[in-house]
């Protein structure tokens, strides 16, 4: 059984992983412990085969409850209208779009890890890419709820797609950043899904090969598209991965750039800012990695995958967090500088109001969570401390949520005409829809953790010979 599994799902013995030929002794191993191919398969497949533990049941119980309760808010909004929300004549977007941008941002880490790091040949990505990609897809699905639900007439949402129609034909408005959003998000979701799924094919085959019941075998066989592990399969798999990585890489930059255009191309002070594209991309990676940390720290513990998702992985991601967090910090300060330097009274007021106006608390929450607190990761000990990392990841998620809230709400609530100044506070419906997306996200993630291999088995195996203790010992004795 195991030999068959190894033959089908282990990569062929070619030299295509040449970049891993030597691991520097200075580097931290990517996998810990004496693993062999079979052990890896065993470790990663077993959570899908055994009865889930109590923790999983508790977790899925909570997340489906949250999903169920939240769906009342969704239904209320659909039946009664956007009036159920706290948005008003001056602040037409509130939590809905804040949450949308936040979730899209979270969805950034997955593609970055799988595509960019693949192209840059970062071996450490293998431990986390699968879960990060899943997280991306689920986050984008959560994000997609908001444009749909926040529309006044969600049943007409198909108007945003440019398709031949009987209304003239009436085309969409290609000038609108919201339309660009439609293209950007759907493309991103599609490519991420393809990338994720194609990576899963050999691993599905592994599970299929280990399956004991006929049904299970059948399901996983279908899921794996009949993968048999031939050299041609592996060849195409590698080519596809590279092509998709190539396609996905610009998306990492484009998606949040385009989301930022929703604001940057407008005329509202505080939105109309050329710095937004890089600032949003950095922020998205920042928040995406934070979410990966949150999930990984729990997953590795619950599914006992500490040997595959090592402290080295955590450390590496914390470095990315430190870098992107600092970029975001520079962007915040640049905005303030430019507002002052521009001499534009509207711009100056918008930023003074952000920091000192009625929503000052949101601004300073954002500043302290996103700029000040990640500076702790300059210290190695902190980067490798799981508790600190976990708390920081939550802080960053909160901070990044507030960043979007600050941009959207504080810019709108006191914009150009003082007569229209207003305050905004969410209603229970908005809170409920946010909860709904949390429920959706965690339910999907928990189901994923049960049914899919959370670590890319085939990819981890590629680094085994370099990183596995027993292989290293073998090499040393030669």
């Amino acid at each position: 059984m195991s030999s068959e599994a190894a033959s089908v799902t282990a990569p062929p013995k070619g030299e295509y992983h040449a970049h891993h030929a030597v691991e520097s002794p200075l580097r931290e191993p990517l996998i810990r412990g004496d693993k062999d191919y079979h052990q890896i398969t065993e470790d990663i497949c077993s959570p899908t085969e055994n009865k889930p533990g109590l923790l999983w049941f508790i977790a899925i119980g909570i997340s489906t409850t949250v999903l169920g309760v939240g769906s009342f808010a969704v239904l209320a909004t659909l039946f009664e209208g956007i009036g159920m929300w706290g948005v008003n004549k001056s602040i037409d977007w509130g939590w809905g779009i804040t949450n949308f941008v936040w979730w899209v941002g979270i969805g950034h880490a997955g593609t970055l890890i799988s595509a960019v790091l693949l192209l840059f040949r970062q071996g450490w990505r293998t431990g986390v890419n699968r879960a990060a990609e899943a997280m991306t897809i689920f986050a984008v699905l959560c994000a997609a709820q908001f444009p749909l639900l926040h529309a006044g007439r969600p049943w007409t949402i198909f108007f945003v797609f440019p398709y031949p129609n009987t209304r003239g034909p009436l085309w969409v408005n290609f000038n609108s950043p919201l339309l660009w959003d439609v293209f950007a998000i759907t493309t991103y979701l599609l490519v991420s899904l393809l990338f994720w799924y194609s990576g899963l094919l050999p691993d599905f085959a592994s599970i299929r090969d280990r399956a004991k019941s006929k049904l299970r075998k059948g399901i996983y066989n279908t899921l794996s598209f009949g993968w048999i592990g031939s050299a041609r399969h592996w060849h195409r798999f590698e080519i596809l991965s590279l092509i998709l990585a190539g396609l996905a890489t610009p998306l990492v930059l484009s998606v949040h750039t385009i989301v930022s255009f929703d604001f940057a191309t407008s005329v509202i002070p505080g939105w109309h800012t050329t710095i937004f594209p890089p600032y949003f991309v950095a922020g998205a990676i920042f928040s995406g990695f934070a979410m990966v940390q949150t999930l990984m720290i729990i997953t590795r513990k619950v599914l006992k995958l500490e040997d595959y998702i090592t402290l080295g992985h955590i450390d590496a991601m914390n470095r990315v967090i430190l870098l992107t967090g600092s970029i975001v910090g520079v962007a915040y300060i640049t905005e303030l500088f430019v507002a002052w330097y521009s001499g534009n009274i509207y711009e100056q007021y918008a930023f003074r109001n952000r920091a000192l106006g009625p929503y000052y608390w949101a601004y300073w929450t954002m500043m302290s969570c996103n700029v000040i607190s990640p500076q702790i990761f300059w210290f190695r000990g902190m980067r490798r401390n799981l508790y600190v990392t976990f708390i920081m990841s939550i802080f960053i998620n909160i901070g990044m949520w507030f960043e979007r809230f600050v941009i959207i709400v504080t810019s709108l609530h006191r914009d150009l005409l003082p007569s229209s100044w207003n305050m905004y506070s969410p209603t229970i419906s908005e809170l409920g829809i946010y909860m709904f997306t949390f429920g959706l996200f965690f339910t999907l993630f928990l189901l994923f953790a049960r049914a899919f291999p959370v670590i890319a088995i085939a990819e981890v195996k590629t680094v085994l010979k370099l990183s596995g203790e027993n292989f290293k010992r073998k090499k040393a004795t030669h």
Partner: protein
Amino acid sequence: MNQDKHWQSVGEAAGDPAVEQLKKNEFQEKLPFDAGVLTEEGGNVNASRRDFLKMFGFSVSAATLAASCEIPVRKAIPYVIKPEEVTPGKALHYASTFSDGSDYCSVLVKTREGRPIKIEVNDKSGANGTNARVQASVLNLYDAERLRGAKAMGEDISWEEVDKKIGADFKAVVESGQEIVILTATILSPSTRNIFADFQAKYPTVKVVTYDAVSYSGMLEANEACFGVRNLSQYDFSKAKTIVGFAADFLGTWPTGEENTQAYMTMRRPTAKNPKMSRHIHFEAGMSLTGSNADLRATMKPSQEGMAIMNLYNNLAVLAGVEQIPNVPKIEFAGNSLGVASKELWENKGESLVLSGSNDTNIQIVVNGINNLLGNYGNSIMVAESAHRQGSDKAVNELIDSINSGNVGALFINNVNPSYSLPNADKFNEAVKKVGLTVSFNERMDETTSMVKYACPDHNYLEAWNDASPVKGQYSITQPTIQPIFKTRPMQESLLKWSDAEVTNYYEYIQNYWQANVFTKQSAESNFQNFWDKAVHDGVMRVEDEIESREFSANIVEIASNVKLSNGDGLELLLYEKMGMGDGRYSNNPFLQELPDPITRATWDNYACVSPKYASEVLGINIKTEADIREKDVIKISANGYSIELPVLIQPGQANNTIAIALGYGRTHAGRAGNGVGQNAYPFLSMINGTWQRYATGVKVEKTGKKYKLALIQTQYMLDGDLPDRTVLKDMSLAAYKKNPSGAVEKIKKYTESDHFVAIYDKPDYRGNGHHWAMAVDLNACTGCSACVVACNVENNVPVVGKEEVARAHEMHWIRIDRYYKGDVMDSDSIESAYQPMMCQHCDNAPCENVCPVAATNHSSEGLNQMAYNRCIGTRYCANNCPYKVRRFNWFDYMGADSFYIYNNDTDKTDTYTELGRMVLNPDVTVRSRGVIEKCSFCVQRIQEGKLNAKKENRKLADGDIKTACMQVCSANAIVFGDLNDPKSEVSKLYKNERTYNVLEEMHTLPSVGYMAKVRNKKENA
């Protein structure tokens, strides 16, 4: 016989020919049809299959229709006199008159398919506009809370029955010799007054007592004392170069507010060639609409008014060299304004006006004395020619005493609501119970009608014939525009019936009256029928009424010694009327309830206005942060033995140590929309010298610790910090204007016309070809009266959303009047206010258009920014990106057939008249569904109509053919609409005016609404 054949009966088997015949028929048995219907002559032929199918088809579909489909209930409203020219889809206009004892206006009623849907201005009357209440009055017609027939003791009763019962009671009262009292609102109708006179002639015990909730008794009695006639004077503001007002809201809630505004504004339009304008100095405690438009405004406590006016008299007496009023303590206000006022009045003798809002007879006599000193009578004031407001506080009080002493046997109540609006309503209510026969003609089961025995509801003015004569020589006709919706009857007909008059038809009565009294005063028409037809057609008629010359005679010095003097210590309470709500009679009109007060910008409530200083120092409110919050502190206010709890509203410009509360709220029997809105402040009125004064002294305030949510439309008020630099509201002093007429807008023009101002896109080419619709708004002319807001609501089917929704900033108004203050917020004397009507700017480079993902909002070739409602998916991106925040989103289904009544507080769903309120909807304007954005369309339906009319008449569209609803009702002519591509149009000329700028011009949105900077008549440069 073929043995294989199956047979069904013995007959068949035997080959019976009858059976053979039957077999050929499809149905062998006789069909169960009524012989008369389907059988043919001869009786033996059954219905054919075709007939059967016909019958079957009919009965099934009829049964289905009857059983399952909801057949729309037909509410056909026939014409009174069916006009021959009626065409579905085409509006008909009827000249008519709005007159309710409080307001008067000659109007055109626009009807569509027999429904009055809009009140427009009757150009023939010479009026420019109407006020907000007249605009909203069309909805009163469709108010399902009106009484739907006569009632006796609260029970429905037929008119015949009620006539019988009242007739019997009435006879008994006449025989007993007790007094018969008609307690009525001011009657402008000469015919009605004649009916009362006939009534009095027939029954000598009849007394007519006129009662105005907001009384002008003081002024009337002052005129009686000075000129011997108990009428209000007519003021000609177009002849006044200096106007000094003491708490006189003559541009706002005075009976002829809009006429005054129209005349006032003729003196307020400086041009570069002739930079002159009238000067308006105002003294008041609360911030009134009129005060907020003054050039110099000083705060004065209500109790100080007498002293202030006597000081003014004395100042002028010195200049005139006449006797001063002795023993008057000196008083002066901020900026030496009383001294300035005296000087400037004297400089403009005969071309000035001094007005006071006081209801104290003695004070008004001194005011008359001042105007007499200044020689204004006969120049800027026509003495006592107006028929407005005839109410007498004294007579009403005497009536109560008279009832209590058992002298009154019958009380007829017409169009007044003393049980609500009398400060001593309890006393009145007690007294009413003692009267044998009590009848109310009021339109609804209001506070008073629910106290009386018989309710005999009058028609709405849109259902009735009537006439009016507001001033001598001017007559107008009210004609019905719809068959009465409910079983109501004109008050006049009821009286005619009960008094067994010869003519019981009021229409005939009016005609007879006109033939005898009006027709004879003119010579243009020799045939009465022609004269009458012309009067009905035009709505207004001017005849030569003889005007007596009246001489001023009053001993000011002696009378002034009776004026109550006060040093103005302590907290004082001011009671005032709001522009929308007036005296409270239209409480159940949701348009008026939701009309934001021009000054406080609050809807659906009254509240305690206090000065910022008082709020922060006495009430301990943080005035820096409170503006953001709609939850306001509640205080308990006690005075004159009455107390209410109201939320605090901080009002810049309010005199310190005063509280202002609006009258007209706290109704209990107004209807679903009006009940329980705000608190009744009438009981706070104080009786001084026999008249009700609209203020109280000895006021106590307690903090309650409670909070109350106010439905404010605008929360921020001050233009401080860097806000004046924004290109929002530009203003300048007249002194600065004389030096440089474009001074206020120079800076922004320099910027937007410089080479540094670079746009990526080319200028759109709407300007130059075809039409380019545009609007010019003169900020100098806009008084903030808000008639345009209601006009727009009615014209464009703008939803009313109710208090809760307004408090959540969900109101839907397409046009709003932004109000800004300048000055030191803590110094009420320094506050300057300005109004800015704000509607969709129809930007040629519209930020809303390029962000809509589905192109639901786009630009027409005529420069209109238009909305395709059924394309809108409701992303609200356009609303966010609108710099002017004029786009409104349908948060709920405000106008839906199933939900309309919720937001309008209309009659509930089970009522037959649930959809009555929707009858007011304009069929030319789409009713918007939930989830779409809407906004000002520049009344595109009117533009289309204007263009079509021109085309049909085969002529070019002329400037002024098309008037938007807001422009049409503006008494001040502050809004001008037209074609910018026509260089001769008014709007093109105004666009080139040196004062014109665009709001937020530096955003390069290229708006189609130009604003003309406000000019304040101030001497100093600013």
